[in-house]
């Protein structure tokens, strides 16, 4: 057969050996790239834990590393949710902490005294290398090793995954995506081979996943849907039976060992799909077995109807149990994925989180760039072959793209599927144009136009059966390939350029958008150099150094974990938003007048109140911008006392300047944010809030019940001390008025102190 270019004469064994060496080297380099690109955060800032939730994970890991696993397991944290406290061991997914704890202990056994903080910071980059490897294995099952390498490279550097796994982002997702991909790989392998060993391994990693991330429900539902689809397609086989049953039985039993999960796998609707498919498989397997041993037609009919009957009884059982309350109906976060208006109505806390917002298209492009349009092409190629594992990718693509559209944070679950599918598409393209085999020019030219002109004209964007026809027709003729060298070169060159652009894009996005720790902020000086804004740590360390260890700090829940982690002080509420009423209490205190808030503060032993204020330097994530959520959440509990419309101007605007509503101006949050703010500008009309671009009144609000204790360099964090009751029993407002020399107007004389008898 003619070739388009000459190949060097090397023996097949040498080619094979070199290929496997190249694969190993390539995987090692991909791992290196994956880890390196996640280190921007450490290089630009320092080795620091990021954001909010990671601070709790870090704190818990420290307990685990210093006091051992059993102490951690029984850890009751009295400083969180003051005065309630939190049973940490039973309300946490321990997989992440356990992983770092094991690494920490192993390193120390090897006499490598690594600080636990550095393990936590570098855990996510380390696991991203493992994710790349797991994706390689997974994609290898879909197509071949070259597609696998591409997929590994894609997932290694794509911003969609980096956004959740930069160094310092010590969160559950850091290890969960590796577990997700590896469990899926093992499942595919189990279905392919019908192997109970791989099924059990899948169950084992499923257990690890359950212990690590609440998103395990994605696996719990993906695998049953895959099995069900295969059955509906008439592809039931004993391989499927063995794989599913071994996964489900072992996986479910082991997942119930995690205290936070407990009996949920048999009590909630999220897990019922898996159980239902398990039951269905038993029925189908029984029917298959019985049919093989039966001869008469009547028996077969009887079997058919009895199987349907059993299925209906089973389905009715689920409905009945749900109705009776034995199975919890769909609620909470998972339900809000289907009923998208649900969260806003019933769980405003969930709706208020920015990563739970729907995704606009620029986010998709930012996170996945060229992968996002290679993805449909790859799915089509999966349809072309449609083996059992391809069905899996197709379902994943469908479900994943829906979920990613509903919630920004679920972009993370879509990313692996997009990488796999795009890699399949891209490597198919390269395969075609690198294949040296050159088809022969047909002798009879007349038959060609009929098939050749068809695709361009009839094949639509989605690839209907026209493609199928053409492909089949061409397959029959057996001529497939590229004739000329220039077309090969242009395609390869184009592909190379697109991949290079992808790398540039990923590097830019990672370094600019996803590497900020958000605890430390960066801005640019006039000359382009970096200016670090370190107000958060400054304030938290002030708390740590200057207040008694027992003083309770109140802040909005976003900052609870950071205060606990960095300032080591008890907090009223934190990012584990389990108690809505407690959060609403804080919201009420912030949204009410000083007089109303003071008893609340005193009842909760609050000594310091911390607010985040960005008006001076233009930090837009501050508490005034979050204020409406505080109002909304407390309105949900006290609708008579807090009403959202009162915080708007009569025109319905949210303002902080002269025209702000009276309720707004008298709220504790407003007063604490703008206290002494106008003085900073000399009391003139210059006081400008740089976030909301509004001019503040010349007179700053006054505080009677609180004292300013600390304000950070750029005024981002402001801490107020709650005054004790007046020693003379006056209310603090009149006491202040008295010290200011203002006489209180009395309508009637107050009773004199009685003389002691």
């Amino acid at each position, binding site marked *: 057969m003619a070739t388009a270019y000459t190949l060097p004469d090397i023996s097949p064994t040498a080619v094979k050996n070199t290929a496997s060496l190249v694969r190993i080297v390539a995987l090692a380099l991909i791992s290196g790239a994956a880890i390196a690109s996640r280190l921007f955060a450490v290089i630009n800032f320092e080795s620091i834990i990021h954001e909010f939730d990671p601070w709790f994970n870090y704190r818990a890991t420290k307990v685990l590393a210093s006091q051992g696993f059993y102490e951690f397991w029984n850890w009751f944290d009295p400083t969180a949710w003051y005065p309630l406290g939190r049973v940490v061991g039973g309300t946490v997914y321990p997989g992440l902490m356990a992983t770092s704890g094991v690494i920490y202990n192993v390193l120390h056994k090897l006499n490598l005294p690594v600080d636990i903080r550095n393990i936590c910071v570098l855990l996510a980059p380390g696991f991203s290398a493992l994710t790349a490897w797991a994706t390689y294995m997974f994609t290898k099952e879909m197509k071949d090793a070259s597609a696998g390498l591409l997929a590994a490279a894609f997932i290694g550097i794509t911003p969609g995954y980096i956004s959740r796994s930069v160094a310092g982002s010590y969160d559950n997702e850091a290890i969960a995506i590796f577990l997700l991909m590896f469990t899926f790989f093992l499942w595919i392998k189990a279905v392919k081979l019908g192997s109970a060993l791989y099924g059990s391994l899948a169950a084992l990693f499923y257990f690890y996943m359950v212990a690590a991330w609440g998103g395990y429900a994605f696996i719990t539902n993906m695998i049953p849907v895959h099995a069900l689809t295969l059955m509906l397609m008439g592809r039931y086989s004993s391989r499927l039976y063995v794989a599913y049953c071994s996964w489900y039985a072992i996986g479910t039993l082991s997942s119930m060992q995690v205290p936070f999960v407990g009996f949920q796998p048999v009590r909630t609707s999220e897990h019922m799909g898996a159980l239902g498919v398990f039951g269905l498989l038993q029925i189908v397997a029984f029917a298959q077995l019985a049919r093989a041993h039966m001869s008469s037609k009547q028996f077969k009919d009887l079997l058919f109807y009895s199987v349907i009957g059993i299925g209906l009884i089973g389905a009715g059982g689920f409905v009945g149990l749900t109705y009776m309350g034995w199975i919890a109906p769909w609620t909470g976060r998972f339900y809000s994925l289907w009923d*998208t*208006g649900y969260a806003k*109505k019933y769980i405003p806390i969930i709706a208020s989180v920015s990563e739970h917002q*729907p*995704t*606009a*298209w620029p*986010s998709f*492009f*930012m996170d996945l760039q060229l992968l996002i*349009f290679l*993805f*449909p*092409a790859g799915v*089509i*190629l999966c*349809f072309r072959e*449609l083996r059992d594992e391809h069905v899996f990718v*197709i379902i994943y*693509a*469908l479900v994943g*793209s829906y979920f*990613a*559209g*509903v919630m920004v944070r679920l972009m993370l679950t879509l990313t692996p599927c997009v990488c796999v599918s795009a890699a399949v*598409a891209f490597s198919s*393209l390269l395969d*075609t144009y690198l294949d040296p085999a050159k*088809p022969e*020019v047909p002798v009879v030219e007349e*038959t*060609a136009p009929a098939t*050749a002109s068809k695709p361009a004209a009839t094949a639509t*964007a*989605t*690839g*209907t*059966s026209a*493609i*199928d026809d*053409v492909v089949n027709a*061409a397959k029959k003729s057996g*001529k*497939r390939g*590229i*004739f000329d060298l220039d077309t090969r070169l*242009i*395609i390869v060159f*184009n592909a190379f350029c*697109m991949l290079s*652009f992808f790398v*540039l*894009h990923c590097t*830019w996005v990672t370094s600019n958008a996803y590497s900020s720790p958000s605890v430390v902020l960066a801005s640019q000086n006039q000359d382009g150099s970096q200016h670090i804004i370190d107000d958060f740590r400054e304030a938290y360390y002030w708390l740590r150094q200057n207040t008694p260890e027992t003083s309770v700090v109140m802040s909005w829940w976003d900052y609870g974990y950071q205060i606990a982690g960095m300032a080591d002080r008890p907090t009223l509420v934190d990012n584990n938003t389990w108690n809505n009423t407690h959060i609403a209490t804080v919201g009420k205190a912030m949204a009410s007048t000083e007089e109303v808030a003071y008893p609340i503060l005193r009842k909760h032993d609050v000594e310091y109140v911390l607010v985040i204020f960005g008006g001076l330097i233009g930090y837009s994530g501050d508490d005034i911008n979050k204020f409406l959520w505080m109002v909304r959440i407390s*309105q949900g509990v006290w*609708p*008579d006392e807090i*009403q959202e419309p009162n915080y708007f101007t*009569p*025109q319905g605007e949210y303002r902080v300047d002269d025209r702000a509503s009276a309720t707004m101006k008298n709220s504790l949050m407003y007063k604490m944010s703008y206290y002494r703010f106008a003085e900073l500008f000399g009391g003139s009309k210059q006081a400008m809030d740089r976030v909301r671009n509004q001019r503040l009144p010349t007179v700053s609000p006054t505080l009677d019940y609180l004292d300013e204790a600390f304000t950070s360099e750029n005024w981002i964090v402001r801490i107020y001390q709650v005054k004790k009751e007046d020693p003379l029993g006056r209310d603090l407002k009149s006491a202040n008025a008295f010290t200011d020399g203002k006489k209180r107007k009395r309508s009637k004389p107050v009773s004199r102190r009685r003389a002691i008898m």
Partner: protein
Amino acid sequence: MHWLPALLLPLLVLAKDPQLELAELAEKGNGVIKLTPNTFELLTSSNRNWSAAIQLTALDKRRRCEPCKNFDPSWNEVAQAWHKVPKAERDNHFFATLDFDDGQATFQKLGLSSAPAVYIYSATDGPHAPASGRFGPHKYDFSSGFEAGPLAEQLSRHTPIPIPYSEPFNWGKLLTSIAGVVSFLSLLRWVGPFLQNKWVWAAGTIFTSLVMTSGYMFTQIRGVPFTGPNGSWVAAGYQNMYGQEVQVISLIYGTLALSFLMLTAVVPYQTSPGRQRVQVYLWTFVIMLVYSVLIALFKVKNRGYPFRLFL
């Protein structure tokens, strides 16, 4: 002499107990009092032992108030639900509607510049007066939407007894779904082979994932308009988009994916080298062009993006 009763009526009304009169008006309006400025004053008089919920709206076509039209049915449903309450309790709370065209002066007095709005006046006298001493008007908060359910729930806090509102059973939906299932089953013979063709499923899958990755759910959840107010179809800002962008972006993604598919799956089966070369160059050109357009669009959304292609 038939004009005489009409002439006497206002006198009679004046003599009557205002609560009875309002009850009569409510009866006439099938649960909702259609207000005029006079009756508005009467209903919200400072000395009242009844409570009232008033819808301030602008239903006239010329006012072009879409939300008013959307809210009005819910309001009437809740009012009718209250109308079913036994008479003894019913007359302690009134539902009323004041249209902008009937009472412009009242709107001005209340300082209302937008409609619809719901004001709730508690009783100031009698057993139903709130202990807190806050008689209103409270403004109903539309943050939970225009649906009747939350409206009834929130208004129930101000009525003497809770409003016995229950969502009407959606027979239409049930019937449509039954009809859908039946017609599907009866058409199964013809639809069946179609459903067994994997390319039908492929088309569905690709369409869904294209639309989803183009931000369709964003437009659904946020209820964004199809185009901007001044006819622009690209919304400014990275976290924002209009309905038309979904179409454009999914078309771009679709074209790019198709070009790749063509290069991978169709071009190699060409039997004539010349034609093959033309197609390779054609599709490569399409990829470059459309990709450039995409990058240019992305630059519009994200102004800080430093890269660009040929555009």
